[in-house]
């Protein structure tokens, strides 16, 4: 059947061969006293049909290349071989088929062709082409070795001789065949080493499928040895692995290599296999040791062994899984380690949690990956990026939602998606959960703080507006009316004779009104110093005008700041100045105000006793509300220095 690469046959050829082989088997079984019973034949043919059907499927879906054909040969070749064998065996019956003798001779060594499909598959999987031009020679060598083995075996068996010529010939033929088969398997190794990520993934599927063959073979062998299982039972698993698991793995690898994360599947399978073997070894060793130490009490030995094995199992599995993962699933292992390192750095304070997006992009090799989080009071489906900007997950991209309980807290949007990437990304997102959550909380906090700051600034300027309005209302409303009323009284008074009781009464009433106006003016000043209308410099000048100590006041006359900054600055200076007068026992107070490009810098210093503590509390709040800062330095005996900075928008206010 020689792989037939030159003529590029499609899966139709092996399918035809299978059909003919199956037909022949059916026909031959129908003869009385020949072949297996009908049910056995049916099962055999059904099992053999699986790779043929799968081969045809692959052949149709991937018309380029020979993978489908090679896979179909896995089932077609045995079908043909069995047919030839049955045909040849008719030679031994009373009514042989035509040419039965010649076929009988061929049949003696025909079993070798059972391997043809596997050899072909090894050579062309997964691309459908040979790994390189030189591998053509290997393909032909496999075919030639098959012919040689068939010929020499048939010849030797037919002549029932092991003559001096036959033995070396048989040995040579077998040697060449083994070498060629070895080379075929080697081609997979070569492909794996040279291969791209996809090729490797595909090959891992084959490894997973093919790996089941020796395992099930060993199981069958063990079953036969220890439990006297029949051939049929013992080797069914092996045959199923050969004819079902391997073809299935090939189909998945070629058509849907991204179906599952094969690395993980492979790693877990291998880890469990190794763990089972190790546990069995532990069980056997402990059982044996107990048996020899305690004598014949086998039950105790078995129980002890089971106990120890059960104890060892989880530990063993964890270690084995780790090691196997490192070997088989290296990427995931590296990813895990890097994310773990990052989480540790975040915990130690050497990395910013906000870099989690960059780290995920890096470990997942996905530069377009986006990590978006949801803020608690944001509407559903609205996200923000890690710098706090609103962001919308790109349409059509794969998303991994991040949840805390039932609440969606964010989403990882992948730039490129595949089952493998998705799985990796999910895993990484879980691993990086801590920095993601920290980032989200910090964003929340920042947003909340911003909101508080702006609302405080709004309140402050609203309050400044209201104070200004109140001050005006007092001056222009109440005061005016009182003065107007006073004038009317004076007018009335002119009609009275001076010296009368009424005249004196009116004098007293008007004086009370005057005092009320003065009081109102004082109140209005407390609400907002009207002198601020003349600018901060004038207001501060008036503030310190009646000072009992020397005041060095330096305010640029042209300093123009907004109402909030001016009022705040005024009250800060007023409070610090009042403290200096009241508590500091100072001889000189220095007040300096500078406009430092959008920031009002205020300094109030005295040469008093210092040691001021906890003063300026209300002023501190006022300054903070205006977005500024206040620092007090007051060493005992060293005077008091109050430094304030207040940002201001020069809006031409006063």
């Amino acid at each position, binding site marked *: 059947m020689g792989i037939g690469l030159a003529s590029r046959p499609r899966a139709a050829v092996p399918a035809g061969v299978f059909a003919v082989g199956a037909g022949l088997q059916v026909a031959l079984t129908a003869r009385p006293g020949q072949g297996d019973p009908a049910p056995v034949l049916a099962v055999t043919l059904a099992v053999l049909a699986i790779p043929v059907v799968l081969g045809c499927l692959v052949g149709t879906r991937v018309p380029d290349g020979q993978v489908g054909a090679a896979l179909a040969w896995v089932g077609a070749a045995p079908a043909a071989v069995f047919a030839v064998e049955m045909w040849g065996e008719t030679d031994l019956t009373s009514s042989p088929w035509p040419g039965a003798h010649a076929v009988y001779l061929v049949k003696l060594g025909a079993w070798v062709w059972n391997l043809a499909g596997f050899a072909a598959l090894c050579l062309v999987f997964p691309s459908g082409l040979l790994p390189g031009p030189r591998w053509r020679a290997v393909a032909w060598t496999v075919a030639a070795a098959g012919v040689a083995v068939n010929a020499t075996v048939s010849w030797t068996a037919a002549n029932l001789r092991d003559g001096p010529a036959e033995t070396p010939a048989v040995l040579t033929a077998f040697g060449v065949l083994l070498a060629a088969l070895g080379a075929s398997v080697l081609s997979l190794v070569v492909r794996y080493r040279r291969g791209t990520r996809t090729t490797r993934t595909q090959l891992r599927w084959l490894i997973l499928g093919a790996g089941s063959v020796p395992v099930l073979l060993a199981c069958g062998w063990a079953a036969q040895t220890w439990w006297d299982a029949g051939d049929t039972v013992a080797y069914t698993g092996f045959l199923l692995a050969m004819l079902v698991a391997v073809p299935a793995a090939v189909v998945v690898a070629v058509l849907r290599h991204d179906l599952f994360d094969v690395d993980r599947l492979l790693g877990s399978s291998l880890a469990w296999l190794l763990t089972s073997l190790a546990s069995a070894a532990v069980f056997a060793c402990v059982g044996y040791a107990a048996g020899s130490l305690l004598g014949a009490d086998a039950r105790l030995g078995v129980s002890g062994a089971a106990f120890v094995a059960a104890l060892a199992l989880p530990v063993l599995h964890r270690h084995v899984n780790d090691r196997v993962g490192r070997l088989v699933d290296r990427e995931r292992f590296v990813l895990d380690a890097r994310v773990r390192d990052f989480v540790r750095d975040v915990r130690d304070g050497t990395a910013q949690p906000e870099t989690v997006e960059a780290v995920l992009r890096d470990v997942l090799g996905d530069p377009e990956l986006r990590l978006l989080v949801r803020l608690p009071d944001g509407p559903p489906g609205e996200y923000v990026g890690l710098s706090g900007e609103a962001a919308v997950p790109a349409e059509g991209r794969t998303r991994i939602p991040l949840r805390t309980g039932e609440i969606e807290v964010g989403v990882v949007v992948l730039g490129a998606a595949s089952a493998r990437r998705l799985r990796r990304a999910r895993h990484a997102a879980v691993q990086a959960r801590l920095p993601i959550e920290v980032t989200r909380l910090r964003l929340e906090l920042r947003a909340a703080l911003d909101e508080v700051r702006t609302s405080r600034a709004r309140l402050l300027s609203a309050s400044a507006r209201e104070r200004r309005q109140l001050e005006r209302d007092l001056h222009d409303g109440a005061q005016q009316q009182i003065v107007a009323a006073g004038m009317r009284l004076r007018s009335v008074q002119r009609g009275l004779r001076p010296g009368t009781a009424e005249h004196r009464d009116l004098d007293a009433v008007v004086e009370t*009104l005057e005092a009320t106006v003065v009081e109102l003016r004082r109140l209005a000043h407390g609400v907002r110093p009207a*002198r601020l209308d*003349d600018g901060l410099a004038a207001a501060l000048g008036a503030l310190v005008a009646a000072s009992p100590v020397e005041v060095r006041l330096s305010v640029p006359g042209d300093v123009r700041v907004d109402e909030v900054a001016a009022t705040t600055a005024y009250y800060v200076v007023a409070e610090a100045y009042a403290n200096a007068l009241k508590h500091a026992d100072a001889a000189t107070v220095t007040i300096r105000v500078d406009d430092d490009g959008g920031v009002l810098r205020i300094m109030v210093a005295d040469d008093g006793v210092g040691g001021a503590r906890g003063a300026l509390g209300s002023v501190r709040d006022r300054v903070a509300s205006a977005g500024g800062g206040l620092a007090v330095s007051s060493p005992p005996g060293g005077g008091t220095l109050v430094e304030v900075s207040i940002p201001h928008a020069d809006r031409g206010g006063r």
Partner: protein
Amino acid sequence: MRIVVADDSVLFREGIVRLLTEAGHDVVAAVGDADALEAAVAVHRPDLAVIDVRMPPAMTDDGARAALRLRAATPGLPMVLLSQHVETRHSVSLVASGGFGYLLKDRVLRVDDFLDALNRVASGGSALDPEVVGALLAPAGRPDPLAALTEREHDVLALVAEGHTNAGVAARLCLAERTVETHMRSIFQKLRITDDGDRHRRVLAVLAYVTR
């Protein structure tokens, strides 16, 4: 005399119009904003303008700014600014040119003093509210030139700064006019101000000195 009154408060305006009329003055116009004031002054050419500092349209210091414009447009027009609170920005610059007064509004209730101040200003003198003078004369963070003055000299200086004559000061302090003159010479000496005899120039000199 013929007076123009500008104040946006109808109540206050009516009150002061009545007060001035009863005192024998002729209020030729009473207006409510700065533009109307300038128009009324242009039409009536009054002997004096009594102006509220805070008026429409801006409700800040429109009256004071209108006064500055009037000073340029109608030099020599005597003006008295009325304010609800003490401010020095406009008052000092205007007072320096004479024929100017700056008073708190409630001073109108001291009718005689108020009318006296109006007369002083109308005749080219000055009238500065005692509170403004107090703010200006108080030691304000510089080596205090007034520290050298005696208490009595301080009182005399304050009254002079308000715009009073020596006789006015003498009457208020119950002193002989000659004593006041002696105090003044001493004050000018201590403050190094040369006395040129012109009464409002004395005020200006003192103000210029203490507010420099």
